């Protein structure tokens, strides 16, 4: 279920080469705006979804605007800051979000009450999202984004509007986060801020780097493998306090191997005479 948000993030960070670490900011805004509205204030789901959609698009526009104003490294830091600000709001605005307790009893839609039906719905939505991303990736938008990533000035001198393309990329990343965070809480019946911390962002970066930045199928495969490892480790006979550190070590090794495997593109060898 994290695939839509990861593929959206891959579009900005992987294909667009924009130093964006604020994907979880979209996720927090999406999840909390929709489910606080629906569960805490009994607002109909359609209106809650509309509210979530409006707010994530606003955050996408804010991040896009910041990316045009700041240098790449400054934007990277600012996007992390934005994520942490939203997380702090969620943790401290207890009258609305219930802070670290999270929001329980998140309902499923009537037609999809059973786990099987709901899983099927999620799979269908994710397939539609993957097809949409592949269509974007292989079409004019994907080419424009790649061109801007490789040579921003050259691409613009051909007529590619950088602000328009990058803003669309941010909006798609935000919609990916909205899709994932509308689907996941009803699946587990709870929305908790623990799922939106910085480690989740690190996981996204790791998935994109190990799958190949910008490569849709690579990122899909990496999502399945890494999520399988992340969740599968729960079933290994380890003391509960060991699972976290072992998981971190495992991810560290995977990241190291991924970077080592791609060392020629990440650290090109200097030519000497």
């Amino acid at each position, binding site marked *: 279920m994290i695939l839509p948000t990861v593929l959206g993030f891959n579009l900005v960070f992987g294909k667009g080469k924009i130093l964006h670490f604020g994907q979880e900011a979209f996720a927090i805004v999406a999840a909390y705006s929709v489910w606080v509205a629906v569960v805490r204030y009994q607002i109909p789901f359609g209106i809650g979804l509309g509210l979530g959609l409006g707010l994530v698009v606003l955050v996408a526009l804010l991040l896009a605007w910041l990316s045009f104003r700041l240098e790449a490294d400054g934007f990277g830091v600012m996007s992390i800051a934005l994520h942490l600000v939203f997380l702090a709001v969620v943790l401290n605005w207890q009258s609305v979000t219930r802070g670290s307790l999270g929001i329980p009893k998140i309902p499923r839609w009537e037609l999809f009450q059973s786990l099987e039906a709901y899983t099927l719905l999620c799979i269908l939505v994710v397939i539609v999202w993957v097809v949409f991303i592949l269509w974007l990736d292989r079409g*004019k938008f994907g*080419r*424009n984004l*790649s*061109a801007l990533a*490789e*040579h921003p*000035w*050259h*691409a*613009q*001198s*051909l*007529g*590619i*509007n*950088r*602000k328009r393309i990058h803003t669309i990329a941010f909006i798609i990343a935000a919609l990916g986060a909205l899709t994932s965070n509308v689907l996941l809480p009803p699946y587990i019946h709870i929305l908790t801020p623990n799922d939106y911390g910085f480690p989740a962002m690190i996981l996204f970066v790791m998935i994109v780097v190990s799958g190949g930045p910008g490569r849709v199928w690579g990122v899909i495969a990496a999502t399945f493998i890494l999520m399988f490892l992340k969740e599968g480790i729960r079933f290994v006979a380890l003391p509960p306090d060991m699972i976290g550190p072992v998981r971190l070590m495992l991810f560290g090794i995977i990241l190291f191997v991924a970077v080592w495997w791609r060392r020629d593109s990440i650290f090109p060898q200097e030519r000497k005479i």
Partner: protein
Amino acid sequence: MPILSVSGLSFSIGDHQILKNISFDVDEGEVIGLIGPNGSGKTTLFNVLSGFLKPISGTVHLRGKDITRAIPSKRAQMGIGRVFQNFGIFREMTLEENVLVALESLSKDQRGELGDLKEVVKGTLEMAGLTQFAKQKAGSLSGGQMRLLEMSRTFKTGKDLFLLDEPTAGVSPKMTHQISDLITGLKKSGKTALVIEHDLPFIGKICDKVIVLDVGEIVLHGKPSEVQKSKELQEIYFGADPTT
């Protein structure tokens, strides 16, 4: 009416003034050479003309329309094409995609005039003599081939005014000849170009007029034969009149 009219253009970074009150007109169908020593402001002038740098004063008009504040992509869609000093080729894309990305970025009217895009892609690769590499990634081409692809792509995308920044830099004499033919073909088809070059015989061969820049100012302006003979040019390039 000139196709390009530059009036009182100045540009500076902090206290350092790089372009000082530059004014000139370019008529349709002309090829104008822009020469001057390193640091004279030639590439900066191109960056201002293509919208990447905003001037502190002065105006740029394209076909009478003020484009001084227009963004680069808008200027490209209005008909300004540019070839950069470093190769403007997208190495991770195939040759076909390199041409297609340029065609897709044109305005609807420009695309309509070109007709079937697949045929234009084919024609562009034929023009560059690179048809056999159509499906290969552009990163596998040699420097000269990249330059030919970039120029053919720029020329085939329905632009009216071309800014060519050192098109023969780093290419073999044979490729220089091919590039010269491409520019001559462009001229014959009534297109307009501004060419930055250090190769004076090349400039003499392809240009109608020459503008000489030195420390951000136009110091000479005239026909290539006149400019090449002038003592000022010798002094600017060689530091002194070599005949003395």
